[in-house]
């Protein structure tokens, strides 16, 4: 059995606690990286991370792109959508096809 974690600023991730997810409020880049580092060690299968927080730990996220566990998924935070999540999808397409053929 695995857990689901949510990393991000307190306002963005608070609501997910009600669903029973493991919520880790983290604001500074150090906190975010430490939290994500811990998530990748053990029992977490899915880690949602706000796009703002993801920017601070991009290298860790990239390292786990091809690993089966955990799936690190960027989500928008309260301060809106930066488009980083969509860019990551386009990046996958680019890797597979050679150029981004799906975005217009």
């Amino acid at each position, binding site marked *: *059995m*695995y*857990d*689901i974690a949510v990393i991000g600023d307190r*306002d*963005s991730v*608070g*609501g*997910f*606690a*009600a*669903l*029973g*997810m493991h919520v880790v409020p983290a604001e500074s880049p150090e906190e975010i990286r430490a939290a994500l580092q811990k998530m990748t060690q053990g029992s977490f*299968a*899915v880690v*949602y991370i706000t796009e703002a927080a993801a920017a601070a730990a991009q290298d860790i996220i990239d390292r786990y*792109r*091809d690993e*089966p*566990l955990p*799936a690190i*998924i960027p*989500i*928008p*935070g*309260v301060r*809106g*959508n930066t488009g980083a*999540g*969509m860019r*990551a*999808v386009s990046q*996958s*397409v680019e*890797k*597979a*096809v050679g150029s981004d053929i*799906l975005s217009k």
Partner: protein
Amino acid sequence: MAILNVNPTRMELTRLKGKLATARRGHKLLKDKRDELMRRFLELVRENKALRAEVEQAIAGAAEHMAIAGASMPKYALDTALAMPKQGLALEVETKNIMSVDIPVYSPKFKTAGEGDIYSYGYAETSCDLDAAVRALADVFPKMLRLAEVEKSCQMMAAEIERTRRRVNALEHVMIPNYADTIRFITMKLDENERSSTARLMKVKDMMLEQAHHYNQ
């Protein structure tokens, strides 16, 4: 034109012919694998984009409710309301094999099945916007989980497609031409040896005939 470093012998020739046949068959299979992976990948990535757009919109909606809730009630009340969740969530992870890529399949296991168990607080001290925010997140959760599944699958398949494409190209442009060239080289060398030994035999025959019968052609 690159010739492998081998001895031009019949044994080498047979060995290389076998290798060439294997390489050709492998190339064909890998090409099929690449094409099928690509088809699946494009299907999946379309779903991924649509899902992501939906999820992002829904989360933004929930965030709006959350912002209003945060404004209409004191911060400590909001924190305590969400501090002790009633609902617990665990995830069962299975894998499904698509073209040798083990993609994950998640099935959520909630601790309690009750519909209202996502509200982990008394309603007296909290704003109804908090209820709306939590409700909205609960509604989008199945899609978020599916998004995680699809996005991870896309990432893993992209990596596998890249690997497969490299293998196909290496076989097509390096290994197979090398084997073909080397086989040609060995065949020529062997033929040349054969001709030279025939010529030598004829010469020897001439010499022996001349010695025995004093023929002179």
